[in-house]
């Protein structure tokens, strides 16, 4: 029998593909089912947000940055406000800090719930997606009653928050977090011990901690590799040091641990929100900031821990009311960089699982 002639073939996975979470394009060189080479092509969602910010005043930049990472838009609002406040040395009222923490953590939960559903869907289980979105819907209701928006909030402003929460917010928020805490058992019961889920996720896409650090991976994806690093604790901002919570870590660094870390983070966020609701003081929610906000000349870099890792904004100010330069840094970009490293050599199904477990979203990659 003559030798069978086989050849590698190139598949364009994306930009229109159900599991690339947006418009990512991966050029895959494949040998049958096996992925030999991955080349991510980014930029399909580039909106030149950084450049647009240079032509806007500081308060006008915040709704632009909402679109930077729209799954956790609160963090984007917050990180820009934080940088501007550091430049101008603005003192933020106590109540505003508490409200910011509540919103940030609610948004983190919402993002992780999307992660839960989408990851399950990428592995082929269609039902958890609806379960995740069901609880996210309650959080969206909370945001809607607070700022009228469900996705791009423009709520956290320089010097505080846009306005105070309505009266019905606190009881509904308490109900939401207790429902989420209760439903987490359902989520875990549906997938955690499922044998198919285990074989699809355990020991798949192992990210060694040194590789993760070398590629700048941060957030839950890095904590799953055993690196105990969380900006909320290690580079404290806002009032996270007042609450009793733990940094969730795991040690294996595979898809399953990345999934577990995010579920653990939901639990910690629930704890933070409950404590913040208990300690919520009365008072103003916004420091006095002129509409013609002009920070002094200088530069600063602010970073926060959002659901996908380190989210940073670098602002260079020339003393006018428009920033001279804005540079953003999102966790997804680095996680997409590390995808070829840990995804090569696996099957195409593994690649989908790894892509989902790194929780990459494309607006953050492409800016």
């Amino acid at each position, binding site marked *: 029998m003559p030798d069978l002639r086989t050849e590698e*073939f190139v*598949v364009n996975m994306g930009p229109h*593909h*159900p*599991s690339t979470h947006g418009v990512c394009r991966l050029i895959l060189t494949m040998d*049958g*089912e096996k992925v030999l080479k991955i080349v991510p092509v980014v930029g399909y969602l580039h909106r030149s947000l950084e450049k647009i910010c240079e032509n806007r005043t500081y308060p006008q930049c915040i709704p632009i940055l909402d679109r930077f990472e729209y799954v956790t838009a609160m963090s984007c609002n917050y990180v820009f406000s934080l940088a501007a406040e550091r430049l101008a040395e603005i003192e933020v009222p106590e109540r505003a800090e508490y409200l910011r923490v509540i919103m940030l953590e609610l948004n983190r939960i919402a993002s992780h719930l999307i992660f839960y559903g989408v990851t*399950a*869907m*990428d*592995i*082929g*289980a*269609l*039902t958890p997606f*609806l*379960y995740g979105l*069901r609880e996210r819907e309650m959080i969206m209701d909370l945001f809607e009653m607070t700022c009228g928006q469900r996705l791009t909030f423009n709520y956290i402003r320089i010097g505080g928050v846009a306005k105070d929460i309505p009266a019905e917010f606190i009881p509904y928020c308490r109900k939401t977090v207790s429902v989420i805490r209760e439903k987490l058992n359902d989520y875990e019961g*549906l*997938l955690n011990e*499922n044998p*198919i*889920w285990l*074989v*699809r996720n355990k020991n798949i896409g192992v990210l060694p901690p040194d590789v993760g650090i070398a590629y700048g991976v941060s957030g839950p994806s890095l904590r799953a590799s055993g690196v105990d690093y969380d900006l909320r604790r290690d580079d404290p901002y806002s009032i996270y040091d007042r609450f009793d919570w733990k940094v969730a870590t795991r040690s294996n660094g595979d898809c399953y641990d990345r999934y577990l870390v995010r579920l653990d983070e939901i639990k910690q966020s629930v704890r933070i929100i409950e404590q913040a609701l208990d300690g919520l003081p009365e008072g103003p929610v916004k420091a006095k900031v002129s509409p013609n906000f002009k920070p002094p000349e200088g530069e600063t870099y602010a970073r926060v821990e959002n659901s996908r890792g380190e989210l940073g904004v670098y602002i260079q100010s020339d003393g006018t009311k428009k920033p001279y330069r804005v540079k953003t840094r999102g966790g997804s970009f680095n996680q997409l960089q590390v995808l070829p490293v840990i995804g090569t050599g696996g*099957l*195409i*199904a*593994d690649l*989908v699982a790894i892509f989902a477990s790194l929780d990459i979203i494309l607006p953050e990659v492409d800016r």
Partner: protein
Amino acid sequence: MIWPVAFAELRPIFDWLYDMVSSTGLPEPWLSVVIYTGLGAMMFGVLAVLALYLVWWERKISAHIQQRFGPMRHGWHGWYQTIMDAIKLLQKEHVDVATRDKFVFFWAPVMCFVAAFLAYVTIPFGEGLIVADLNIGVLYIMAVTTFTIISLLMAGWGSNNKYALLGGMRSAAQVVSYEVPMVASILVVVVFAGSLSMVDIVRAQDGMFYNWFIFRLPFGPIAFLTYIVAATAEANRTPFDIPEAEQELVAGFNIEYSGMKFAMFFLAEFVNMFTVSAIAVTLFLGGWNGVFLPSWFWFLLKTFAVVLLLMLFRWTYPRLRVDQLMEFAWKFLVPLTFANLILGAWMKYAGWYW
């Protein structure tokens, strides 16, 4: 008289139809042709409507599992939603890829559709309610249901699309692998019934429910479970739906198909699901056997119960990876079913059964 079997409950209707056809005075070979064509068309109509309703049913079940409503607009709880969908798909333009292999691309959905219906020739819907009681019934069903993979391969190849080709190759590998444990678990039943005829197999399970092959300990439940697993794979359903894994291959083999060609694949999938459930009922769950109610009612009731089980699998489980799927078939199911077959054959030989 050319009736192969008696249609017990529906006899008067069939007699009336037969009289009507025979009163035209056609000579004998043509009369058979007309009658069998009519019978086939009737079967086809019933199964096409059934497939449409399985689609609706699946949508409702998935919706209720996922805390949604599902179709609600067309009629009571959307009962004619899928009919409207089918009408819409019929009206749609066929988008054909320029680089397709015309012959293969066109005939793949037709073949898939036809292959899905062929198995119903030997499925006993009730006592005497069978088109042809072949003495090699089980063998025939195994042969024609495997036909489907040829059509999936054709679709994958003919589309000239890499995802479709991967899907077609996956389905070929999968169905060929799962055919082995499926046949091995069915053979246990054949050994005990002592016949390949579907009617004889049902007759071997006469009486109360403990006579069903699923309750013949210890081999019956094992054979049933392995059959259900293999059948899920055979019908390309989650957790074994890798040929059309939409998150990996977008839609797999049917990626380039649109309109009614797509609908033919889609309906064939549901017909296949009903087929494997009907076979499971016939072989393991006593077929039409039951008390008080008519035999066809019992058959349909049991079949729908098995269909429901397959649907619950789909909306609960994630999908296996392609190599894990193969490992599961060859390293676990095949040894298990063959051990079970040997055990069953030995018990039959030793007479340790009731």
